[in-house]
């Protein structure tokens, strides 16, 4: 990074704003006794499973348990969103009108209704008909939601590949499916990594909504911890930081993958 005179001014303004905020919150605003000391044990603690358990082990605290479930939901939903999105992206470009219509109805339906409503519908309606667990229903809702957006990204990616690539593949005797798999999609996916990453970062954040169907993810566990301790500020800041760990890791990983794949450019 290069600093110049303007950076100094920017830093000065930033420092002034932070000082002002500190003054406002401590001297003018509410008085609040912080309880940061109770946060670490919500992440990890040493002891038994419950008060009656005498064993001493390093165990995950309530927020860490929620974090792990959020991770599991996000990874599973991302996996299925890629599969759904690839199918939707390809069928949106199908030469067969019914297939094309069905996939665009799916995309429009999902993109134009709120995710929260979709989660309720999938959990209460489909969930009770098909006897889905909260995990299955919540993860399915996220995958179906993200799949519609991924489908549009994949479609744009495929369309961005020059038609000469398909013609060259077909003239070598490849079938449409072979050309898609070996020639078009690898190039398209490489090109759509940045928007895909954005979509999956959204998916991680949106996963906090599944707490409404009592799926004990990071958000849900955070709410539970707040209900028990009333340390709302500390806990929600910590919850936010834990989401940030997930999304920021994904962000960094994407940049790394992008650099690796840039070799053939």
């Amino acid at each position: 990074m290069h600093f110049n005179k303007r950076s100094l001014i920017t830093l000065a303004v930033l420092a002034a704003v932070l000082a002002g905020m500190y003054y406002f919150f401590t001297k003018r605003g509410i008085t609040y006794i912080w309880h940061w000391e109770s946060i670490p044990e919500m992440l990890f603690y040493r002891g038994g499973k419950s008060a009656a358990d005498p064993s001493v082990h390093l165990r995950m605290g309530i927020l860490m348990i929620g974090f792990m479930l959020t991770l599991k939901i996000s990874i599973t939903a991302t996996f299925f969103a890629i599969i759904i999105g690839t199918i939707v992206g390809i069928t949106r470009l199908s030469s067969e009108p019914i297939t094309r219509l069905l996939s665009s109805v799916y995309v429009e339906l999902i993109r134009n209704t709120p995710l929260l409503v979709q989660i309720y519908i999938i959990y209460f309606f489909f969930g009770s008909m098909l006897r889905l667990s909260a995990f299955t229903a919540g993860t399915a809702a996220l995958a179906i939601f993200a799949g519609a957006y991924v489908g549009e990204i994949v479609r744009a990616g495929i369309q961005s590949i020059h038609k000469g690539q398909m013609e060259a593949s077909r003239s070598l005797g490849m079938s449409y499916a072979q050309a898609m798999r070996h020639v078009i999609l690898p190039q398209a996916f490489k090109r759509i990594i940045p928007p895909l990453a954005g979509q999956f970062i959204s998916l991680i954040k949106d996963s906090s909504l599944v707490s409404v169907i009592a799926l004990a993810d990071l958000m849900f566990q955070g709410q539970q911890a707040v209900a028990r301790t009333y340390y709302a500020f500390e806990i929600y800041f910590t919850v936010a930081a834990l989401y940030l760990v997930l999304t920021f890791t994904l962000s960094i990983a994407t940049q790394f993958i992008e650099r690796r794949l840039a070799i053939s450019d």
Partner: protein
Amino acid sequence: MIKAEHLFKTFTTPDHREVKALVDVSIEIEKGEVVVVIGPSGSGKSTFLRCLNRLEDIDSGRLLIDGIDIYAKKIDLNKVREEIGMVFQHFNLFPHKTVLENVLLAQIIVRKRNRQEATEIARSLLEKVGILEKENAYPAQLSGGQQQRVAIARSLAMHPKIMLFDEATSALDPEMIGEVLEVMKKLAREGMTMVVVTHEMGFAREVSDRVIFMEDGKIVEEGTAEHFFTNPTSERTKLFLSQIL
């Protein structure tokens, strides 16, 4: 080898104009023959070539390749295309694959050759087009002429019976045209059946067995290179030649 009977094709442009790309085109091309198709842009010469492996559909007519009607309903088009190589103006190499992988891919997934056999074939063809030393480079690292030579090797690796060239040198810098034409001449001498759409009159004169001149979707003049360049019959051909030579 190739027998076209009364091919017709009309395009509709985005602004709803109708363009007659092929009007009653009939021609027979023998095995081992090198046919050069020339004509002004928009004359239908590229469309004609792209109909030979059915990258474009025709409106009516019949096209037999090796006795097989490739516009018949129940035809395995992929099988037909395995036997017809095509080289494009803009090379269309697969940019995410190395030179060697470009030549390997269709051999392995279409011809079902094992990797070792495919690699041997690929290497010998890359050597033939003079670019073996770049086998691990990506297309973006090559010059236009080098890319086009790789594209030719990629087509040849399928061991096609026919090779189609669609303005294979038109997108190249002048100093690179020669190296690609050399490879095409070598192929012609080896007896490959070739249909070549080109603006390279030198190539047409030197290599072709027959020259076809097209305009407005019709074959206007057809004959040996000798006849075509020294003694054309149609006024239109004379005008075209006077403009380009």
